[in-house]
């Protein structure tokens, strides 16, 4: 279940995407070319995520969705020690923001440990790693301690930031999605990678991108 989004069209593209991302899609979700818009994008999408014909659809809703080339909405969340952390703190260096379903689940543990094991490579690239899930600070603290995670885990209670960034759910909305964003030094998204059941691939893809930045 992996999708890689490409840049969106310009501002005139409040057009529906040609192949909207579906959670179960394995294919590249080809979205039309992007402008250099620095707004986190708005797109019209059908609520059932079917491709929308060019004629006006019967039902549309506007959803905010972070894509490549955009500046994501800022957030201020508590970390595993209860301290508030803002996204702006990381400006000036690349940052890997990875949304994961929950602490102490097999995939998330694999992913966290994979980030941990490659952390030196991320440091070498000058990047920070930040994990975000809906768990509270105490859960993050225990999770980080148990697996000796050297990076920040943020508590997105109520999954507010997840919704703001438009992280898609999997399995017909039953599972919070596993999606990673790489932001460059200017805070612009350069990669969006989604893969629920192959968590280690997030590390490979993000490192690949960081090395090219």
């Amino acid at each position: 279940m992996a999708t890689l989004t490409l840049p969106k069209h310009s501002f005139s593209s409040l057009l529906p995407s040609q192949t909207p991302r579906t959670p179960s899609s394995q294919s590249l979700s080809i979205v039309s070319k992007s402008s250099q818009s620095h707004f986190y994008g708005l797109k019209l999408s059908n609520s059932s995520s079917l491709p929308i014909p060019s004629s006006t659809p019967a039902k549309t809703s506007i959803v905010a969705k972070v894509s490549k080339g955009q500046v994501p909405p800022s957030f201020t969340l508590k970390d595993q020690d209860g301290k508030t952390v803002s996204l702006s703190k990381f400006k000036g260096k690349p940052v890997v923001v990875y949304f994961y379903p929950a602490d102490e689940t097999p995939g998330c543990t694999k992913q966290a440990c994979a980030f941990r094991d490659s952390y030196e490579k991320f440091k070498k690239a000058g990047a920070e790693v930040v994990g975000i899930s809906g768990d509270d600070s105490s859960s993050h603290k225990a999770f980080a301690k148990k697996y000796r995670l050297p990076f920040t885990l943020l508590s997105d209670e109520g999954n507010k930031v997840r919704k703001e960034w438009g992280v898609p759910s999997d399995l017909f909305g039953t599972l919070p999605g596993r999606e990673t964003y790489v932001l460059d030094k200017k805070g612009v998204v350069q990669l969006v990678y989604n893969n629920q059941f192959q968590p280690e691939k997030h590390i490979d893809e993000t490192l690949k991108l960081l090395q090219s930045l």
Partner: protein
Amino acid sequence: MAILSHHHNKYPLRSLQHVPTCHHQRRSHTRVTCSVTTTSTKPSSNPDQLIVEPGLDRLVSTPPPLVTPTSSPLLNDPSLQSTWSHRAWVATGCTTVMISLAKSMVAAANSHIWLEPMLAGYIGYILADLGSGVYHWGIDNYGDASTPIFGSQIEAFQGHHKWPWTITRRQFANNLHSLARVITFTVLPLDILCHDPTVQGLVGVCSGCIMFSQQFHAWAHGTKSKLPPPVVALQDAGVLVSRSQHGAHHRPPYNNNYCIVSGIWNEILDKHKVFEALEMVLFFKLGVRPRSWSEPNSDWIEETETHSQVTVH
């Protein structure tokens, strides 16, 4: 499946060093059994065919008391031997299956159709494997001995993980009687009500495979040199679940190779992380964690010592 437990912390991390001293007990009534000897009814392994009839078992047999696994069963333990009750249930189970198959064959002959019933039989064989995996996954991961209906099965499966070799010492009817009982109650109405050769073909083969899945399971725990050559041949051909495939289920992380009829579904289900996905859905929707997510405690880890004299430090 109403076997969900909210005891997330029921199986905390524990070192083997903390296993209490176990001494060989003679003739103990507290010996663990791996078979289902109580009133649990095994639910449908094939959701399309078999229906759980909760509580019916209680009308027909008195369950022995549930026991807490304490020590390794002796090889000649009476709980491993077949009783006449066990044999009777296996006989009734076999009878209902044979009736189903016979009805299918007779109706097929009368209608001059063979392909559809045979295909249906094959589909029944395939579905039985899938059903065995789903049931096995559920029982291995959720609930405990106190879970209604399934409690004794869950306990038995945990005992099996701790002493997997016991199944090879269990006598035939002792091993199969619980499944045979469920098959009797579910297939008998179908025998009476259904006259279609294709449906009976599917029902007969599916229920037969489910009933004998415990035997296939026992063979999967056997050693090659001690198994009958035809069984080894069938295992090697992939017709029956292989020893190596099932052996992988008994090694950490204990979260794969759940199917025990032919094992044909194991690769697909494991490769596509179907059970992991189901576990995640159940976790997010109901808040229950499967046992396979936690480090197994001593009740789960296979006891390799025949004389369990583990000293507490």
